[in-house]
C-alpha cells in the first residue's frame, strides 16, 4: 500500500531512466530475435508443430507495460505477447521448450505456444478461447484489492477479441468493483483476416472506456516510450485504488495471422508504412541520440542476444519429449501433486 500512497499524488509519469531504457531495448530485441527464429526457422524446419503466432512489430506493448510491473503484480498476456514472459522471469530455454513440446517446458508438453503460466511469477496464460482471460483478471483484481498491496492485474487482448462477450462482462465488472485491472488492447488492424471495419463500427476503441466508467485512452503502440507513460498513468490509478483503465495500443501485425498464413489479404503498402514505425529502431534512435548507448554497444548487444537465443534453442532441442504415459497425470490437484513431485531436469 505504501507504494500506492506514494504514487497517488503524481500526475506525470517520470521518463524511464537510462537503465530502464536499456532494458527495454534488450527485451524488444530479444523478443524479436526469439520470435523470428520460431516463425522463420524452427517452424519451417518442422521443429515446432501446431499453430505459430508471433508479435513482430507489436513488441513495444508488452515491453512498455511489463517493464513497470512490481512483485505481486499479475499479467495475463495475449497470444502475441512474448516479452511479458521474459520480463516476468521465464528463461528463453523454458519458453523454447514449451514451443517445442518438451517435457521440461513449463507445460511439460501438455499445452503449446505461450500457454505458459506460473503464479509465483505472476503470469496467467491465455487459453485459445479469446477474451476468457479478461474475467479471470477481474478475480485476480478482487484479491489484489483486498490485500491493499497496491498491486495490479494487466490483461492483454487483441481488437478482434474485444467483440467477445467476456470482455464486456469483465470490463463492466471491473468498473463496478473498482478493481485494479488494466485492459490493454493491442489493435494490430487485423483479426486473422478480418480488418477492423468488419470487427467494429467505431474509429477508435478507446471510447469503450467511457461505456463502463473507466478512463479509455489510445496510444501509439509502436512507441515504447508512449506506451510506458500511458500504461504508467493507468498503473498509478490502479495502484492508488482508483480502479481500472482501458488502453488501446495502435499497432500492426507485421506477419500473417500464423506462420502458415501468407496474409495476401493485407495490402503490401501497409507493411511498408508500418515497417517505418518499427518500435525497435525507434527506441534505438532515442538511445543513440541521448547517448545512452552507442553504435558499438548496440552491435555487441545484438550479438549477445543472438548468442542467448542460439543457446536457448540448443538447450531446448537437447531436452527430452515427455513419456506418453504422463498424459494421464494430474488431471486433478490432489495431496501428492504430480507437478510438485516430478521436478524438471
Amino acid at each position, binding site marked *: 500500500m505504501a507504494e500506492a500512497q506514494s504514487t497517488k499524488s503524481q500526475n506525470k509519469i517520470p521518463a524511464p531512466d537510462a537503465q530502464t531504457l536499456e532494458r527495454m531495448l534488450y527485451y524488444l530485441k530479444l523478443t524479436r530475435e526469439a520470435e523470428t527464429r520460431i516463425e522463420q526457422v524452427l517452424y519451417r524446419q518442422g521443429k515446432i508443430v501446431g499453430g505459430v503466432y508471433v508479435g513482430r512489430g507489436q513488441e513495444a506493448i508488452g515491453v512498455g507495460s511489463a517493464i513497470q510491473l512490481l512483485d505481486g503484480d*499479475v499479467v495475463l498476456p495475449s497470444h502475441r505477447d512474448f516479452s511479458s514472459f521474459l520480463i516476468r522471469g521465464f528463461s528463453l530455454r523454458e519458453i523454447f521448450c514449451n514451443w517445442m513440446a518438451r517435457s521440461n517446458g*513449463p*507445460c511439460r508438453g*501438455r*499445452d503449446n505456444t505461450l*500457454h*505458459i*503460466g*506460473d*503464479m509465483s511469477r505472476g503470469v*496467467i*496464460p491465455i*487459453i485459445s*478461447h479469446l477474451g*476468457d482471460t*479478461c*474475467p*479471470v*483478471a*477481474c*478475480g*485476480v*483484481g*478482487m*484479491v*489484489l484489492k*483486498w490485500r491493499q498491496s497496491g498491486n495490479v*492485474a494487466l490483461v492483454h487482448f487483441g481488437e478482434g477479441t474485444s467483440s467477445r*462477450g*467476456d470482455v464486456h*462482462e*469483465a470490463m*463492466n*465488472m471491473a468498473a*463496478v*468493483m473498482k478493481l485494479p485491472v488494466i485492459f490493454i488492447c493491442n489493435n494490430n488492424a487485423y483479426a486473422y483476416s478480418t480488418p477492423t471495419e468488419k470487427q467494429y463500427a467505431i474509429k477508435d476503441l478507446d471510447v469503450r472506456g467511457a461505456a463502463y466508467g473507466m478512463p479509455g485512452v489510445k496510444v501509439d503502440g509502436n512507441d515504447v516510450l508512449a506506451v510506458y507513460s500511458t500504461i504508467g498513468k493507468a498503473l498509478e490509478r490502479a495502484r492508488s485504488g482508483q480502479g481500472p483503465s482501458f488502453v488501446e495500443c495502435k499497432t500492426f501485425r507485421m506477419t500473417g495471422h500464423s506462420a502458415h498464413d501468407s496474409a495476401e489479404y493485407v495490402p503490401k503498402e501497409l507493411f511498408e508504412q508500418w515497417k517505418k514505425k518499427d518500435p525497435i529502431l525507434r527506441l534505438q534512435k532515442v538511445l543513440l541520440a541521448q547517448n545512452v548507448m552507442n553504435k558499438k554497444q548496440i552491435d555487441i548487444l545484438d550479438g549477445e542476444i543472438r548468442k542467448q537465443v542460439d543457446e536457448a534453442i540448443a538447450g531446448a532441442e537437447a531436452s527430452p519429449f515427455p513419456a506418453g504415459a504422463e498424459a494421464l497425470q*494430474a*488431471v*486433478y*490437484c*490432489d495431496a501428492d*501433486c504430480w*507437478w*510438485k513431485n516430478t521436478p524438471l531436469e
Partner: protein
Amino acid sequence: MPHLTYLEAIRQGIWEEMERDRSVFLLGEDIGSYGGAFNVTAGMLEKFGEDRVIDTPISESAIVGAAIGAALMGMRPVAEMQFMDFISCGFDQIVNMAAKIHYRWGAAVPMVIRGPSGAGVHGGPFHSQSNEMWFVHVPGLKVVAPSTAYDAKGLIKASIRDHNPVIFYEHKYLYRRIKEDVPEQDFVVPLGKAAVRREGADIALITYGAMVWTALEAADMLANEGISLEVVDLRTLLPYDERCVLSSVRKCSKVMLLHEDTRIGGLAGEIAALIAEKAFDDLDGPIVRVTAPDTPVPFSPPLEEYYLPNVQKIADAARQLAAY
C-alpha cells in the same frame, strides 16, 4: 442435534467454512443483503462483510471467470448461479478455463459453483433443468449432487475444501421439503463416495439427487410385493464411486438406473456401460433405465408430472425386471 432443512444445511456448511477459512468467499447475483433468490446466503453479508459476500452484475461468464482468477490467487470462491439453468452462460469458462488449468500448467483452481437445479416446481424449461452431464463429461471438474440434509452440509464443506473446481447441484425441490437432524460440529462427507440408502437383495437401484427419495418410496412399496430393492445414492457424480456401484450389482445381480435428467447421454448410460463391462458375469437381466424422456422440461403441471420419473414408473420397471 438441530433439525435442519436441506437448504439450512447448505447454508450452515458454507457458513462454517467461511468462519474456518478466510480464503473462502461468495460471489453471485443478489446474494448479499437479499440473501440469494432462495435465501441460501441469508445473513452472510451481515456476518462476513462486503469483501466476502459479493453481489455481481448479471454476468455469469464473468462470475465464473472471476472465481477462477481468485482461486488462482489462493482463495476459495463459492459462486452462486441463481438457477443452475443459467450455468450455460458461464459454460465456456468452466469447461475450458477452470477444468484444464491444473492439467495444463499445474496451478490449483479450488472453487465451487453451486445453485438450485431440478424440476417438480413448475418452473418451466429454463428453471427446471438437470444439466449435470455437461460437466460429468469434462475431465478436471468434480460434480456433486446431495440428496439429504446431512450430505448437503457434509458435501458442500468437502467441495469448498477440495483443490479442484466443483459443480455443486442443489435440488430445489428438496430445499424445504427435506428436514433431518444434522450435527452442529464440523464434519465432511468425502467426495467420490456413494451411499447405500437401503439394503436390498433383488435389484440394485442406482440414482442420485431428489430421485433418491422417489426410489426409497418405490422400494417400500415393492417390499410389500416381495421385491427387494437396494437403493444406491451416488452423491458424487464425478468422480463416481465405481466400487460401491459394482458391489451392489454383484449382490443383487439385477440393476436399474434412475435419474431425473433426460435419457440419451444421461448418467444412467455411463453407469450401465461400467456395469456391462466390469460386472457382466454378475448380471441376471437387462440393465434398465428409468429417466425423464428426451424433451425439454415442460411447464404445465400435467406435462411436468408425465415427464418426471415417479414411484409408479419405477415400480412397473422393477416388477418386469424382477420377473425376468
